[in-house]
């Protein structure tokens, strides 16, 4: 049979079900790919022996009724995996071996899949290029020296390079959608509360959501179906029935109203991004959707709001890394306070320290009202913009990112220019809405670009359907030459 690893998850599942490939052979094929792709640096940890054991167990006693029968999956190293090291891309967790499993990964394993390895990411998911990881830069398979996006950069790189049939990431301000856009893949950030946050290393708890990263929309529906669901252990988990996203996938979008927000046409946006947006609008219109101009007037304030809210929550969440109960401890430090200070100084990288300091400052006495309270108020206005628009439309179409993948080192000296990468993705996190990034074309350098579909809260099925129809009618094909092996 032809190389199975360049097929979609859905095709692979069919091949397993019809016994064209065993779980063991499938797993071996991915292991071979991973071993010849060390240059990409997508993995922090591999669990090959364990994966082969699980594959063998499956082949001996297969259950083909499961959603992910015998499928090996690599996941972002932000999900705690029982007895497998979980680093969050940080030196401070370089020896942390959880004694529990995150709910989201447990859901995936319960549907028949198993762990292939842990994928590199920006430290504590803070970054847009995977350059803040303690475990080194990840390379985008699209081109040598290109960043894979971030923070789920190991996930996007591994997926695009056929090192895993599908994967999962987390998205606090764009960390699933931006890397998906940079690698020509599909990424979905679900509604806040749809996927449990239990067992995921926390960054900013009111914004963090786990979601699927896949090669196709159908794959995305399958993965979301498996990973989502109510969890008692997450106090913000939404208590509702599990949806069958893949079974209910439809490509008829006739009559749907698609909002086009004028505020997403920003200064200095490359012409190609604008052209791609036009192309997307035309495809949806030709499929019978109705385009409606809308306004989300507070869009430009989303990023400044995010850079108060997210660091504030991070500074609080990351207070737990003190070198006492788990993780790295500095050998220096005469007393307790000095031990804390040295541990945190040696354990955290520069970007994480910057954000902890921003967060500590905006929450500190005398500054709380001017920054944090102000940001919470603006967040209300941003959410209201979406609420008002969604009374007249079904979904919103925008570009996913203001540019295609950039070179390693290109933006590391200017934090604000790095932050601007997330200008189109951040508003959605602040409003808690679902959003999908789907590949739509390439720029003049041949690098992929994505378009974003934003839905109402819990309207994942609708944006998946629109994406499904779009995918069938968009001539995009991700052609990556395997230059690294």
């Amino acid at each position, binding site marked *: 049979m032809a190389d199975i690893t360049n097929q979609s998850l859905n095709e692979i599942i069919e091949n397993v079900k019809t016994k064209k490939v065993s779980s063991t052979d499938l797993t071996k094929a991915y292991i071979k790919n991973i071993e010849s792709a060390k240059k990409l640096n997508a993995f922090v940890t591999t669990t090959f022996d364990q994966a082969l054991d699980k594959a063998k167990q499956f082949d001996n006693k297969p259950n083909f009724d499961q959603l992910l029968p015998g499928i090996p999956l690599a996941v972002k190293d932000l999900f705690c995996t029982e007895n497998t090291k979980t680093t969050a891309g940080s030196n401070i967790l370089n020896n*942390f*071996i959880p*004694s529990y499993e995150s709910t989201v990964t447990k859901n995936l394993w319960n549907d028949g899949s198993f762990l292939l390895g842990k994928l590199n990411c920006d430290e504590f998911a803070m970054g847009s290029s995977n350059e803040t990881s303690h475990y080194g830069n990840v390379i985008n398979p699209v081109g040598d020296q290109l960043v894979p996006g971030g923070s789920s950069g190991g996930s996007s790189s591994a997926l695009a390079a056929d090192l895993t049939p599908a994967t999962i990431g987390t998205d606090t301000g764009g960390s699933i959608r931006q890397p998906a856009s940079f690698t020509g893949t599909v990424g979905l950030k679900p509604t*806040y*509360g749809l996927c449990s946050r239990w067992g995921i290393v926390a960054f900013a708890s*009111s914004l963090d959501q786990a979601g699927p990263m896949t090669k196709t929309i159908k794959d995305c529906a399958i993965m979301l179906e498996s990973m989502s669901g109510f969890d*008692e252990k997450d106090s*913000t988990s*939404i*208590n509702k029935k599990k949806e069958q996203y893949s079974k209910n996938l439809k490509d008829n979008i006739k009559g749907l109203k698609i909002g086009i927000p004028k505020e997403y046409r920003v200064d200095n946006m490359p012409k190609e991004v604008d052209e791609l947006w036009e192309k997307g609008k035309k495809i949806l219109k030709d499929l019978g959707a109705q385009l409606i101009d809308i306004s989300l007037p507070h869009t*430009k*304030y989303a*990023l*400044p*709001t995010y*850079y*108060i809210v997210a660091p504030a929550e991070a*500074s609080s969440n990351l*207070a737990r890394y*003190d*070198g*006492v*109960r*788990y993780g*790295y*401890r500095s050998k220096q*430090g*005469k*007393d*307790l*306070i*000095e*031990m804390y*200070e040295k541990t*945190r*100084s040696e354990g*955290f990288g520069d970007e994480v*320290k*910057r954000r902890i*300091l*921003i967060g*500590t*400052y905006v929450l*500190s006495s005398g500054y709380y009202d001017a*920054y944090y*309270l*102000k*940001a*919470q*108020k*603006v*967040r*209300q*206005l941003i*959410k209201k913009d979406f609420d008002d628009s969604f009374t007249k439309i079904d979904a919103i179409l925008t570009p996913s990112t203001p540019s295609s993948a950039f070179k390693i080192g290109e933006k590391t000296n*200017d*934090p*604000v220019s790095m*932050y601007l990468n997330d200008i189109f993705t951040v508003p959605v996190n602040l409003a*808690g809405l679902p959003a999908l990034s789907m590949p739509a074309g390439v720029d003049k350098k041949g690098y992929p670009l994505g378009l974003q579909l934003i839905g109402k809260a819990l309207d994942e099925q609708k944006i998946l359907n629109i994406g499904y129809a779009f995918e069938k009618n968009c001539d995009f094909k991700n052609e990556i030459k395997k230059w690294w092996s």
Partner: protein
Amino acid sequence: MSLDKEKIKHVAKLARISVDDAKVESLTKDLNSIFKFIEQLNELNTDKVEPLTSILNQSLRSRKDEISDGKIREKVLKNSPKENDEFFVVPKVVE
């Protein structure tokens, strides 16, 4: 407003992160450019806006106050950088 080196050292102290003098300079530059960006929010009048404290339409659930696990001291201590079988160990606090 602008952040000076002293202020940054103070915030670092609050955050329990030691910062070398050599690093304070670049940190001051970076944080000031970030705060300049953040302060765009001051253009907006938000006097009559309620702060958003939760994006969920539901209120937080409460659960019964009962023990659901326990007796896992080994597991809890397993990842500790220093322990003595029963406790986490820290540098001496009381003279």
